[in-house]
Structure formats: structure tokens, C-alpha cells
């Protein structure tokens, strides 16, 4: 019967895979750069080296996977067909890749022109993707909460990118822009409005589907994105009007939304019917634990306490979110969706395609997970003892390299089974 299955809405395999194969390369670069420049990153999150590492992780690693996954996910999961996905990927992928390289080069002192290139390429790439995704989502007939969350996430991406492009233009063309204010907004919209919102929307589908858990009930699944959106609104108004109590409301709402999502997800996973504990489940658990840990750390950072250790507290927050929560969920999902997508395409050309487990065996994936967790422990430890930054960064790079190797082997298997 499986030969009869048809996933006509799914884009060609090359559309998501080009993003998936590029992302770990930025992760490797982030790990190596952190090993080399750890002291500057630990000293201040405002250092240019810290900006470079952060953007290798966010624009280089996270954005690549998230855009690639959405191009696959939107039609199948949300009924949102994207206009000419192959052409879109042909335009967006090089724009995001070269834009990320130019941005990081700009932070590392390659010259103002690289910031100009980054502003243009990242602005154009995200705008193109955001427009195509928005049209698809706007026309979607879906009735569930996932649709609204994905619409919000894409809007969050557009706002975060607009702010980021303004900041990069300020560097590139030496414009007088309010850097601190824009940076605060850019960070909030990028992490809460785009990345976390997207993870929430994706979790509503993939956690029950792949881990056979009970579903996210309707009421909390509407309340979670509402809390995140309310937090962002308070944060934005508070920053623009310089009203401190609004910023505190933003912290409370953001913390409630984040804790609510992470705790609810862990609870559903504990009640899963499929009692197998695979790498994807482990990765989700680490990711949710990091989100839970990030909340008290972010409150400490907001309080500015203890003042003498503030840079280290902010660094720890960065580790829990940017090296921990999002990369954990992303790697865990890649180990599930890459075999799934590959199987889906193979069953169209052969009667007995290899099982998902054969595309990337879990024993193989578990090695990547072990390396990743070890790197995370060392990176967090560097907040207390700086020399750990070197092995932490290098192990993170090694975990990303292993992820890349596993993805390449999966592609190799696909090529060996499909006629040219």
C-alpha cells in the first residue's frame, strides 16, 4: 500500500536538504571561533566576537534549518503551498548563506562593505522567503492552532530581520541608528517572536506525530503563543517609550510562556505511547530543560544581579538558549525528519524503501547527541571557569561536524538508491 502513497504537496528533496546540509557548517565555525575568541565573548556580549559567534549560531545554523524545514513543513503540515519552492530555494539559500558569511566577516573586521552586503542579502533573502511563506499561510485552509502560530513566527522573522538589517546598515553605511534600543528589540523578536514561536508551532505537530504523545490541548495551545506575543508587545512598547514596568511585564509573560511550553511538552512526552527513548526524544528533553533553565538565568540578567558577574550571567543565558535549547531541538528534529523525508521520496520510486531507522540508525545519532551534551556542559562550565571555553567550543564544532557527516551519509544512501 505504501507505494500508493502520494505526497504531491511536498517539495523536491533538494529544497530542504540544501539548507540542512549548510547549517552544521556554520555550527562548526561557531564552535571553532568560540574556542579561539572565548575570552572576548565571556567578557561582554557586546563584543564584536560575541556578535560573530551569536550570528553564526542564529543566522548561520538556526535560520538555515528553520527555513529549509518550513519549506518542507508548510504544505504537508499546514496545507500552505509555497509558490515554486525550487526557485525560491535557489534564490533564498545562497542569499542566506552568503549573507551570514558577510555578516560574520563584518563583525570580525573585514570592512564596512561586508556589512552592506550582509544587509542587502539577508534582507532580500528573508523578505522573499517571508513573503512566499505568508502567502501560503494566508491561503491555508487549516483549522488548528498551528496555522496561527506559524503566521506569527513568520511575522516575527520579518520584524527581527528588519531590525537586524537596520543595525547592519548602521554599521555598513555608518548611519546614526539607536543601536542599544534596536539591538534589544532585534534580540527579543528573533528569539521569542521567531525561533521560539516556530518551535512551538512545529511541536504541536511533530511531538504527538513522531513520539505518539497525547496532543497539545486546544486552550493551552492558543494561550502559549498569545503569552509570547503579549510579552513581545510589552517589551517593544516598554523599550520604545522607556517604561520599565512594561519591560517587567514582558519578562513575566515571556517566562510564563516559555516555562508553560517546556513543562507541557515534557509532560506530554512522559505520557507517550511509544516507549522508545531515541535521540530525537533525548534532544527534545535537553532542549526543554535548557529553556526551563534559561528562565531564572534571564531574570537574573534582567535584575543585573550579581552586578560583578553580569557578563557571565548573560553568557550563561546565551549558552542555554543559543548553544543549548535551539540546537538541541534542531539536531533532534533533523535526525527524525531527514530519514522521514528521504523515505517519503524513496517510496515513490521503489516498492520496498529502507526503513527510516536504516537511513540514519539511532546508535549513530546517539554519538552526536553525546558529543553535543558534553560540549554543552563544558560551555556552561566556562561561565565559572573560562579555560573550559576551548574544549567546549571544539566539542560543539565536533558535534556539528558529526551531524553534517550523518546527513551526508543519508544523502549518499538516497543517491545510491535512486536512478539518475
Amino acid at each position, binding site marked *: *500500500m*505504501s507505494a*500508493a*502513497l*502520494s*505526497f*504531491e*504537496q*511536498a517539495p523536491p528533496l533538494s529544497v530542504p536538504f540544501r539548507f540542512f546540509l549548510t547549517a552544521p557548517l556554520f555550527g562548526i565555525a561557531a564552535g571553532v571561533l568560540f574556542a579561539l575568541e572565548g575570552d572576548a565573548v565571556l567578557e561582554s556580549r557586546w563584543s564584536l566576537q560575541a556578535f560573530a559567534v551569536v550570528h553564526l549560531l542564529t543566522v548561520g545554523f538556526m535560520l538555515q534549518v528553520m527555513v529549509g524545514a518550513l519549506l518542507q513543513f508548510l*504544505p*504537508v*503540515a*499546514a*496545507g500552505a503551498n509555497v509558490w515554486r519552492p525550487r526557485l525560491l530555494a535557489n534564490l533564498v539559500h545562497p542569499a542566506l548563506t552568503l549573507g551570514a558569511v558577510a555578516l560574520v566577516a563584518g563583525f570580525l573586521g573585514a570592512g564596512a562593505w561586508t556589512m552592506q552586503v550582509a544587509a542587502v542579502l539577508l534582507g532580500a533573502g528573508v523578505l522573499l522567503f517571508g513573503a512566499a511563506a505568508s502567502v501560503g499561510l494566508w491561503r491555508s485552509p*487549516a*483549522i*488548528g492552532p498551528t496555522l496561527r502560530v506559524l503566521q506569527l513566527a513568520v511575522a516575527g522573522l520579518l520584524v527581527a530581520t528588519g531590525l537586524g538589517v537596520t543595525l547592519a546598515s548602521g554599521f555598513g553605511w555608518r548611519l546614526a541608528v539607536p543601536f542599544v534600543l534596536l539591538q534589544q528589540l532585534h534580540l527579543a523578536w528573533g528569539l521569542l517572536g521567531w525561533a521560539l514561536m516556530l518551535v512551538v508551532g512545529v511541536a504541536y*505537530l511533530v511531538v*504527538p*506525530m*513522531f513520539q*505518539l504523545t*497525547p*496532543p*497539545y*490541548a*486546544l*486552550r493551552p*495551545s492558543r494561550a502559549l503563543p498569545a503569552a509570547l506575543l503579549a510579552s513581545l508587545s510589552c517589551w517593544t512598547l516598554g523599550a520604545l517609550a522607556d517604561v520599565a514596568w512594561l519591560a517587567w511585564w514582558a519578562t513575566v509573560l515571556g517566562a510564563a510562556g516559555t516555562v508553560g511550553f517546556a513543562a507541557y511538552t515534557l509532560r506530554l512526552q512522559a505520557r507517550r*505511547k*511509544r516507549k522508545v527513548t531515541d535521540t530525537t526524544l533525548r534532544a527534545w528533553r535537553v532542549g526543554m530543560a535548557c529553556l526551563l533553565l534559561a528562565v531564572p538565568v534571564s531574570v537574573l540578567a534582567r535584575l543585573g544581579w550579581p552586578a560583578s558577574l553580569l557578563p557571565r550571567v548573560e553568557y550563561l543565558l546565551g549558552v542555554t538558549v543559543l548553544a543549548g535549547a535551539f540546537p538541541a531541538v534542531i539536531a533532534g528534529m533533523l535526525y527524525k525528519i531527514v530519514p*522521514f523525508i528521504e523515505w517519503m521520496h524513496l517510496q515513490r520510486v521503489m516498492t520496498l524503501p529502507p526503513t527510516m531507522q536504516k537511513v540514519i540508525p539511532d546508535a549513530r545519532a546517539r554519538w552526536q547527541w553525546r558529543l553535543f551534551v558534553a560540549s554543552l556542559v563544558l560551555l556552561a562550565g566556562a561561565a565559572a571557569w573560562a579555560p573550559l571555553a576551548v574544549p567546549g567550543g571544539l566539542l560543539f564544532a565536533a558535534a556539528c561536524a558529526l551531524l553534517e557527516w550523518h546527513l551526508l551519509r543519508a544523502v549518499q544512501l538516497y543517491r545510491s538508491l535512486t536512478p539518475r
Partner: protein
Amino acid sequence: MSSAVIDARYLAPPEPMERVLEALPHLERGQSLTLLLHREPFPLYTLLTAREFAWVTTLGEDGTYRIVISHRP
């Protein structure tokens, strides 16, 4: 209208779709087939359209989607 139910809420993909595709040839006019699932099955909708079936989807408070499939009038 008589109705058969496929409870696919705790089945891994692609089993829910396979079960529906196996059941569709036995679905007579005037009968309906109800699929319970934890997500909205857009790939299945494409197949139902191609095979001239109609469907109505509702979402319960607990997050369960109920897809009632019947022959197109």
C-alpha cells in the same frame, strides 16, 4: 448514515493514511468513514480530492481532529 471509525491517534506515520486508503474502496455511498488523528492530514486531503471523496474536519478541545469522509455528492 452509517459510519466506520479509524482511531489513528497513536499510530506512527504513514500508518493512519495506509489504513484510510485500505478502507476507502469499501466505503459505499451513503456511508461515512471517520478518522481520529492528532493533526490535520493535508497529504490525505490531496488523495481524497483525487478520488472524489468529500470530508469535513472538526477540532475538539482535547486537540483531536475528527475527519468525516464520504463520497462526493
